[in-house]
C-alpha cells in the first residue's frame, strides 16, 4: 500500500524535475550565502578565475545565510545537486560532519595561516574574521565601550542583529554572549531585546538596513570599516572594540558525500587556498585570508583583536539546539 501511494504521489509531483542536458561542459554546483555571490562580493571574480582553469562551468546557488545552507542540505539530503557547500563556519562544522553528508577533503592544510592549528578532516577554511558591532561615528556619539556597556547601555541606540537560526553572524553573537555570560545569557538577551530593531535572517539584510539608517549599530565584523575606507573613502565607520574579546569565525567549505562531480569539487577546494582565490577575499568578502595574499593586506585592514573568543565546535554541536531554544524563549517574551 505504501509503495502504491508513494508511486502516485511521486508521479504527480515528479512532473517538475528537469534533467541536465548532455554534451555541455560539466557544471560544478556550489551552495553559498547570498552576500558571497552579490555583484560586489567575491563570487563573480572567483567564478571567472576557476572557470579559466577547470574546463567546467561554476554555478553558485545562494541561500540567505550560512546556517540556512546546512538546513537546506539536510532538507535535500543525499539527492542534493550541490557539489560544494561554501560558507559554513566553525560553529557548524561538527554538526555538519555528523550528518554524514560531507566527504573528507584529504588535503594537507598545515601551511594555512589561521589563529589556531587546523585539524578538521571534512572542511577546508577559506577566510576568518571577528564579530563586532559597527556604527557610524558621526551619528553615534557615545559608542559602547564593552559588551557589558552594550547590554546595559541607554535605550536610545537601536541595534540590528541576525537570527542565529539562519545566519552565522547571528549564531556567532549567541555564542559570544553565551561564552561571556554563561547561564546569565537569557537575562542578557532580555535586557538587549527592547533595543533590537529587528532580527534579520541574513547578514546582508541587516547591513542593508544599517546603511539605510534604520538603526545605529549592526552586528558585523571588525573588518567592515575597511570596506567603507577603501570602496567609499569614508572613514566615519568604526567597529566597537570590546575588552571581553571579539568572537572568532572561521568560514569553511566542504565537498558533499554525494557530489555529482567529486573530482571537480576537490579541485575547487584546492583552488580555494591558492592565491588566486585568497587575493580576492580581503577586498570583496572583507575577511582575513587564510594564506598570504599578493602585496599584503590593505593598510585599512585592522590588526587582529587583542583577545578573541571561541567555543569548541563539538560543544556548540552538543548545545546549539538548547541554546537557540533558550534564545527563542528569551526573545519572544
Amino acid at each position, binding site marked *: 500500500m505504501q509503495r502504491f501511494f508513494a508511486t502516485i504521489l511521486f508521479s504527480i*509531483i515528479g512532473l*517538475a524535475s528537469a534533467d541536465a542536458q548532455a554534451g555541455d561542459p560539466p557544471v560544478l554546483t556550489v551552495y553559498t550565502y547570498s552576500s558571497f555571490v552579490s555583484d560586489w562580493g567575491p563570487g563573480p571574480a572567483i567564478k571567472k578565475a576557476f572557470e579559466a582553469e577547470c574546463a567546467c562551468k561554476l554555478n553558485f546557488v545562494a541561500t540567505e545565510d550560512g546556517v540556512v545552507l546546512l538546513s537546506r542540505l539536510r532538507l535535500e539530503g543525499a539527492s542534493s545537486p550541490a557539489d560544494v557547500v561554501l560558507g559554513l563556519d566553525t560553529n557548524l562544522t561538527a554538526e555538519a560532519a555528523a550528518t554524514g553528508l560531507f566527504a573528507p577533503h584529504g588535503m594537507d592544510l598545515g601551511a594555512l595561516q589561521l589563529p589556531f592549528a587546523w585539524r578538521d578532516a571534512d572542511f577546508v577554511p577559506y577566510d576568518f574574521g571577528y564579530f563586532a558591532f559597527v556604527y557610524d561615528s558621526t551619528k553615534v556619539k557615545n559608542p559602547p565601550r564593552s559588551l557589558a556597556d552594550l547590554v546595559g547601555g541607554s535605550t536610545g541606540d537601536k541595534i540590528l542583529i541576525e537570527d542565529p537560526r539562519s545566519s552565522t553572524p547571528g549564531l556567532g553573537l549567541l555564542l559570544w554572549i553565551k561564552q561571556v555570560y554563561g547561564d546569565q545569557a537569557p537575562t542578557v538577551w532580555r535586557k538587549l531585546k527592547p533595543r533590537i530593531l529587528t*532580527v534579520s535572517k541574513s547578514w546582508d539584510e541587516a547591513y542593508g538596513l544599517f546603511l539605510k539608517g534604520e538603526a545605529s549599530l549592526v552586528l558585523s565584523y571588525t573588518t567592515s570599516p575597511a570596506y567603507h575606507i577603501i570602496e567609499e573613502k569614508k572613514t566615519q565607520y568604526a567597529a566597537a572594540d570590546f575588552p571581553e574579546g571579539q568572537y572568532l569565525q572561521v568560514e569553511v567549505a566542504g565537498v558533499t558525500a554525494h557530489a555529482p562531480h567529486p573530482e571537480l569539487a576537490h579541485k575547487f577546494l584546492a583552488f580555494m587556498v591558492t592565491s588566486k582565490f585568497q587575493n580576492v577575499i580581503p577586498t570583496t568578502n572583507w575577511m582575513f585570508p587564510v594564506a598570504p595574499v599578493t602585496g599584503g593586506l590593505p593598510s585599512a585592514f585592522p590588526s587582529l583583536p587583542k583577545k578573541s573568543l571561541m567555543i569548541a565546535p563539538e560543544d556548540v554541536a552538543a548545545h546549539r539546539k538548547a541554546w537557540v531554544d533558550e534564545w*527563542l524563549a528569551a526573545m*519572544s517574551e
Partner: protein
Amino acid sequence: MARGDERIAPSFVLRVWLNDMPGVAVASFLLLLLGGALAALIAAAPPDIANIFADLYLRHVLLFTTLQAALSALISVALALPVARALARRGRFPGRTLLLRLFGLPMVMPAIVAVFAIVALYGESGWLHWLLAKMGLSTGGFLYGLSGILIAHVFFNMPFAARAFLAALEAVPGESWRLASQLGMASGPVFRLIEWPALRGTVASVAGLVFMLCFASFAITLTLGGGPAWASLEAAIYQALRYDFDLGRAAVLALVQLAVSGALLLALHRLLLPAPVSLGLGRAMARPDVAGRGGAIVDGVLIALAGLYVGLPMLSVAIAGSSAAMVPVLGAAATWKAVGIGLGVAAAATMLAIGGALLLIAGGQRLACPGAFQFIGSLPLAASPLALGAGLFVLLTRLGGSLEMGLGLVALINGLMGMPYVMRVVAPAAREAAERHDRLCASLDIRGWNRWRLIDGPLLRRPVGLAMALVAALSLGDLGAIALFGTPETATLPLLIYQQLAAYRLDAAAATSLLLVVLTFGCFILIERLVGGPAHD
C-alpha cells in the same frame, strides 16, 4: 437520485465501483494524503507532545498568533461597521460604484504585494513617513512588529467586511424604512432597532472568518514581524523548517495550527455565509436619518478616509512600479523565468483543484451522498499551506522522496488549498443542475460525456470559470508553499518580491509587484471570460 427502487443485482458493487471510481478515487486519495500528512506530523513530533505548552517559545507563538488575529478581526469589524453604515446612508454619490469595486480588489491581491505597498507608504522611505516627519512626528521603526501586521491585515479585511455589512444593510426590507420614517426615528434608534438586528449575524461570521484568515497569515507576519517575538504559527513553521531544519518543532507547530484552524472551522461552520455577491449599486432607500448636514459630513469623512486607506497602497504600487525601475526588471531573465514558473504551477494547481472537485461532486451525486464528498473536498480548509507543506514534506521524506520535486509539491499544495473554494462555488450549481435534469437525462438515456456536453457543461460553465480564475489567482500570488519548497532557481514572482524586499531593493520590488498584480488580475479576468463565457452584465 432514486436508487432505492433499483434491483440490487450481484454485480451492483462492481458496477458502482466502475461508474464511481473516479470520484471515490479522488476522495480516497485526498483522505490518504491529508491523513498521511497528519500521521507523518504526529510521528515526527517529539514524544512528549503532552507537555508542549511548557515550551515558552511555542506558548508565546500561539499567544501572539491569537492576539494579532483577534485584534485584526476586532479592528477590521470596528472600522468596517461605520464605513458600511455611511455607505448605506449615502446611496448615491459620484464614485460610489468605483469605491465598492476598489473594496473588492484586496481579495485577489497577493499578500506580498500588499506588504510592499505598505512598506512603500508607511516605511522609513515612504512618503507618509516623510509627511509625518515634516509635521514633526517621528514614526521610527513602527512598521516592524504588531503595528505593521495590523495595518496590513486591516487593509485586507476591512474592505471585505464593509462590503459584507453593506450587503446586509441593503437587504433590510423597505417596509422597515417606511415605518422608521413614519416614526421619525433618529440615527441612534435606527441603528439599535433596525440596522444592528440585520447586521448581527453577518458581524459574527465576518469576525470569525477574518480571525481565521489572520490566524493563518504568513507573508505579512514573516515580512513585517521582525523577530521571533512577532512570528505567527505559519511563519514559525517556515522558520523551523528552513532556518533550523527542526522537524520536531515544525511538526508540533503544524499540529497546533491544524488543531486550531480545524476547531475554528467547526465552530464557524454554521456561521459561514456565501461571500456577498451584491455590490450594493446605489439602491436608494428612504432612510429617515440622512437629512442632517452634520451626519452628511461625518459620513463623507468616513467614506473618504476608508477610500484613502484602501486606495493609497494600491496607488503606491501603481506609481512606484511604473517608474524607471521597471526597465531592468522587465529586462531580467529571472523575472520571466519566475513568470513562467508561476504560470506553470498555477495551471497545474488549477487543473488539480477543478478536476478533483468536479470528480468529487460527480461522485457525490452518483452515490447519493453529496454531503460526504463536499466535506472531504472542504477538508483542506482546515489546513494551511505551511502546515500542509510541513506534513507533506515529512511524509515525502519518510517515503524516500526528495526536494527535487519542490515545484510539484507547490502545485499540489496550491491545488489542494484551492479545492474547497471550487467546491463552494461549483457544488450548488451542480446540485441545482442535477435536481432539474436527472430525470430527463435518465429517460432520454443521456449519460457521461454527452450529458456534460449537452446539459451540465453549459450550465456549470460560469461557476467553473469563476472557480478556476480564483484558484489561478491564489496560486499566482501564493508565497507560503513556494517559500517552503522554492529555491533561487525555482522562484516565482512572490518569492522574488520577498527577496527584493528583504534586500531592501524597493525599486525592484515595486516593479515586480506591479507586474505580479497585472499578471494576477489579467489571468483572473482571462480565465473567467474564456472558461465562463462573456460577461452577461
